């Protein structure tokens, strides 16, 4: 089983990871000039209308919670409760992720202002994998 896992699981330096670097860390998405749909990660064909003319689009790191849930049964490796959010980003587009640094999940509501921060999100064979999480925007 261990050998099979080793062969089939992508390693941290595997093509999947470096290919998506700009998308993951620079938050580059795509916007369609024909239908204005903003999507993420970058794609060559607009998923909304099928246009081939999509352009790179810089996503913003702040936004408001569009919807959320408080997950008491997360997948292995995560401590409950975690708060899953889908965020309407300022300037368009949405991002799906987790909240971090919430003492009390009840503080989160639809419309709550949040800000992306870079966090360790998982470990893969001893190496840390980073990604964005959201934290509540500081007052003022």
């Amino acid at each position, binding site marked *: 089983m261990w050998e099979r896992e080793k062969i089939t699981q992508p390693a941290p330096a595997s093509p999947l990871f470096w290919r998506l670097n700009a998308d993951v860390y620079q938050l580059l998405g795509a916007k369609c000039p024909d239908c204005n749909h903003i999507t993420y990660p970058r794609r060559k064909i607009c*998923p*909304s209308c099928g246009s081939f003319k999509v352009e790179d689009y810089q996503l913003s790191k702040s936004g408001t919670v569009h919807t959320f*849930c408080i997950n008491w049964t997360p997948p292995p490796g995560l401590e409950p409760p975690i708060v899953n959010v889908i965020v309407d980003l300022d300037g368009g587009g949405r991002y799906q992720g*987790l909240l971090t640094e919430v003492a009390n999940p009840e503080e989160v509501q639809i419309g709550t202002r949040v800000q992306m921060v870079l966090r360790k999100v998982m470990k893969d064979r001893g190496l840390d994998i980073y990604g964005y999480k959201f934290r509540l925007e500081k007052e003022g």
Partner: protein
Amino acid sequence: MSIRGNVAVIGVGMIPFGELFEKSFNDMAQEAFMNCVNNVDKGFDPKDIKAAWFGQWSGGGMIGQGVLAGTSLATILGLRDIPITRIENGCPTGNDTFRNAVIGVASGAYDVCLAFGAEKMRDKPGVESLVAAGGGGGGILGLHPSWMLGMGGPVLQALYATRQMHELGYTMEDYARVAVKNHHNGVACPYAEYRFEVSIERVLNSPVVCWPLHLLDCCPQTDGAACAIVCRADLAKKYTDKPVYVLGTATGVDYQDMWDKHSFIEMLPTIKAAKAALTMAGIAPNDIDLAEVHDCFTNTELMNIEDIGFCKKGEAAALLKEGYWNRDGAKPINPSGGLKAHGHPIAATGLGQICENFWQLREEVGQERQVKLKNGIALSHNVGGGGFGVSAINILGREP
């Protein structure tokens, strides 16, 4: 050749769904098929089947087998001389498998086709079971793992449930009421996995799986198998005097990823499939007597009822409270108990719904749970797949 009225269902079969530790995948599949063949009114020779579609979602990972393909069903059912194709289309696999068999007949290519679905989900424990099948929201389409962090079946629907509460004013009590209704229906259904009543209090006091959804808002993971034989309508009387006809069949898709969705109070795949199936059937939602809809979570049933068009958006919960969707109400929804109580063996689920509708339309379910028929039309519906981006619907009727 058009589909409407030209394809008939002449027999269906399934096994009681549940945690079937004592049965193998083969046992379940063979029993469902034998139940189907042995219950065709005027007798049926499996050699009459000219092509088959094998609905199978998990692909063997959950039962320690490499791949389940056409050859698997050929071996299990002893059907080695016909073409067999495996279908995997998320939770709508069962209804989509049926649709493919129907198209096989309607195309003129085959006189008689088999639609078959089976799933063994309980040989591994809950979370492990979904992980083994590559489900639960992990690593689809080469997305970066950080985007899928902490996702899973209940999360996908809880994100909708929160938004339904926000936009439509739905409450956790409204959601619990769906479980109460469907458990009540399940008690009377001999094929249902859960045959016990629940109260609103019991649902709301069950552990929170993913707020706002409680344990008793969630359908189970289930073992089960179900199938249906379809044939040319003009040949149906050879097999039965009471065939049931296919009036409409459709599959609808939309975005896979949650962040592309236009809304979290409705699902476009269902809306598209419903529109296409109803148009093919030439009927309106009001013409339908009963429906089996996809209640993988309680909030999902309310959304589906609205998306199919049985009522306006935002009205399903109030009508539920009035008893409108009850088995003896104006529009019975999930008289079988639904996924919630009948169980959800993914590829078998839609075909189980078709079995229920076949028996209801032929008034064979017994007086206690027989729904009142006006037009003799029933609908079955699933929604699911990556990010709930696929839906399949079949509409059956007593008259062609």
